[in-house]
């Protein structure tokens, strides 16, 4: 079988709505307000309640917003939007034909583990040798669809905190973004956090952490603000320690309803934080600096959610260049696509990079591919498969996995303390103190567990 290489280019996330829902509205209430009465008097009907954040989702006609304005108890209201939250990045599938020589692995190491350079960068194995593999930690992965019976994910998640918010069904399948049914973004991120150490495929950063798989986006990578907010609340209500969100949407501040949608996500993230969950979010792949931006993406005009939420920590990406040719190369170059800026980046993690100037084929751990592919991050896909991809989406679950390792050693803790452990252990790369690319540093599991 010929190997198939799918390459796609990252797209900007400053997107106009895929399909603005004129009939679904987000209504934010003042604290303790009776929103049912206010919504009904404006001609709307409550479809769903988000009581933890004083919000409701409303079905209404075109006149609802005008009628709702000024109603007692309503702080803000806006039409919900569906936007693209996951870019279509560089990615490449692993097929059996790519494996020229079955690798000889020592016991306890899954056969594809030696493709996972990210674990070396963050010293995950050193944490495992200390006896900490995420046991006792609960990590919610909010993403698109999942394959629940994948050999590296089955048995790793808790069904009681695994759910679909979109109505599409939790299973990943072929879609407008992926006709192969392999490139399941949610599987890749969940696998990086907690794929099983079972002699099959890959190993997650925290292979004994309990995963809560929450589908908040359609398989194509688009979704509504309602579903994302509801997913955050759902995860928070299920006693998770960490919420890992490899997704991000940008809105122009001047865009109609932007302020309300931002408040919705901020309220949800704040709710999760108060419930004890540290929310870890990807910074985005636009290659933009929030400190000195170019084009139209200025801080004055652009909101990036949920990474702009005050209680969320925002993750940039790092990666090697030419790891397929030489495994001693630096793993910590700021990725060419990562968003950055002292004002927005908190920490960095392995997200991989794409360097087309690296030519030729390489063989690593018995797998032969174009050399540049090995600089990507390797993890689980759907259809029982695995694939490589790059992005701050890949960096974020590495950081979430390290957070789970910290919890497995020190026990459940307030998110402020968990954030402090991540910061304390991070390697202060780049400019000292707070670097625009690395933030407080690239996470280091060994150092965080040695505090």
């Amino acid at each position, binding site marked *: 079988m010929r190997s198939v290489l799918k390459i796609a280019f990252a797209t900007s996330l400053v997107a106009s709505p895929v399909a603005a829902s004129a009939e679904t509205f987000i209504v934010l209430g003042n604290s303790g307000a009776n929103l049912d009465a206010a919504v009904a008097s404006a001609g709307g009907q409550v479809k769903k309640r988000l009581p933890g954040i004083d919000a409701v989702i409303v079905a209404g006609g075109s006149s609802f917003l005008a009628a709702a304005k000024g109603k007692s108890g309503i702080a803000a209201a806006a039409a919900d939007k569906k936007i693209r939250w996951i870019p279509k990045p560089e990615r490449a599938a692993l097929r059996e034909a790519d494996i020229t020589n079955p690798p000889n692995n020592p016991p306890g190491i899954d056969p594809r583990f030696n493709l996972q350079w990210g674990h070396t960068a963050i010293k995950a194995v050193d944490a495992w040798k200390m006896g900490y593999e995420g046991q006792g930690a609960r990590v919610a992965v909010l993403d698109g669809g999942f394959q629940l019976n994948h050999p590296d994910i089955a048995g790793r998640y808790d069904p009681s905190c695994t759910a679909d918010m979109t109505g599409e069904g939790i299973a990943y399948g072929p879609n407008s973004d992926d006709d192969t049914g392999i490139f399941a973004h949610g599987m890749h991120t969940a696998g990086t956090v907690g794929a099983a150490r079972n002699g099959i495929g890959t190993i997650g950063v925290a292979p004994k952490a309990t995963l809560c798989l929450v589908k908040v986006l359609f398989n194509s990578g688009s979704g509504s603000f309602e579903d994302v907010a509801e997913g955050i609340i759902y995860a928070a209500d299920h006693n998770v320690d960490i919420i890992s969100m490899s997704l991000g949407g940008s809105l122009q501040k001047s865009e109609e309803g932007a302020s309300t949608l931002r408040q919705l996500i901020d309220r949800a993230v*704040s709710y999760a*934080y*108060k419930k004890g969950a540290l929310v870890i979010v990807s910074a985005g792949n636009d290659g933009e600096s929030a400190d000195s931006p170019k084009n139209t993406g200025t801080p004055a005009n652009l909101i990036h959610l949920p990474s702009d939420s*005050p*209680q969320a920590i925002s993750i940039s990406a790092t990666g090697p260049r030419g790891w397929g040719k030489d495994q001693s190369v630096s793993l910590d170059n700021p990725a060419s696509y990562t968003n950055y800026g*002292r*004002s927005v980046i908190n920490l960095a993690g392995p997200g991989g990079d794409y360097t087309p100037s690296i030519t030729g084929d390489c063989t690593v751990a018995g797998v032969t591919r174009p050399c540049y592919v090995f600089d990507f991050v390797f993890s689980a896909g759907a259809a029982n498969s695995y694939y490589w991809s790059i992005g701050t989406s890949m960096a974020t679950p590495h950081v979430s996995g390290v957070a789970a390792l910290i919890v497995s050693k020190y026990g459940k803790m*307030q998110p*402020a*303390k968990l*954030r*402090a*452990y*991540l*910061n*304390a*252990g991070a390697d202060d790369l780049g400019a*000292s*103190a*707070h670097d625009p690319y690395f933030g*407080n540093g690239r996470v280091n599991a060994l150092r965080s567990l040695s505090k």
Partner: protein
Amino acid sequence: MTIALQRPRAALIGAVAALLLVALVIGLATSRMSGSSSRTAESVKVVNAGTVSVPPVQVSQRTADSPLREEETASEPFTRRYNLRPHYTRGTLDGYSVEPADPRILAGSPLRAGDVITVIDGIKLDESKFRRLDEDMSGLADVFVSYSRDGKVSEDVLPLGR
């Protein structure tokens, strides 16, 4: 002859008394118009127009039982809210001491005046971190701190009122 000399003295005394009375009346009237009274000194606003290089200072005092409003404290920059001062041990900067002008800032907080914050949010509180501190703390609901008190190091979560 004596009687003639007494008449001018009496007139002089009367004139002085009249002047004093007029001055008293004018003084009372002025006091009423300005509305200030030395008995309510704590409510006096002192406004210093300042010099070119010194900004105007407005001082007002709350009464003893007026509470601090959460929104007032939460929006104030962190370093100013806690009035952080560099702390040295044997000539080396080892943190910043908490010296708020209003002790009510520390109500409900694990910190006391005089505590020295040595690590904040997992980062050593040195000059470099101090320069970024207001920006880093902006928007946070709370932060994990290590602090020294009477030679003993403790750790706790410091609520930031957001």
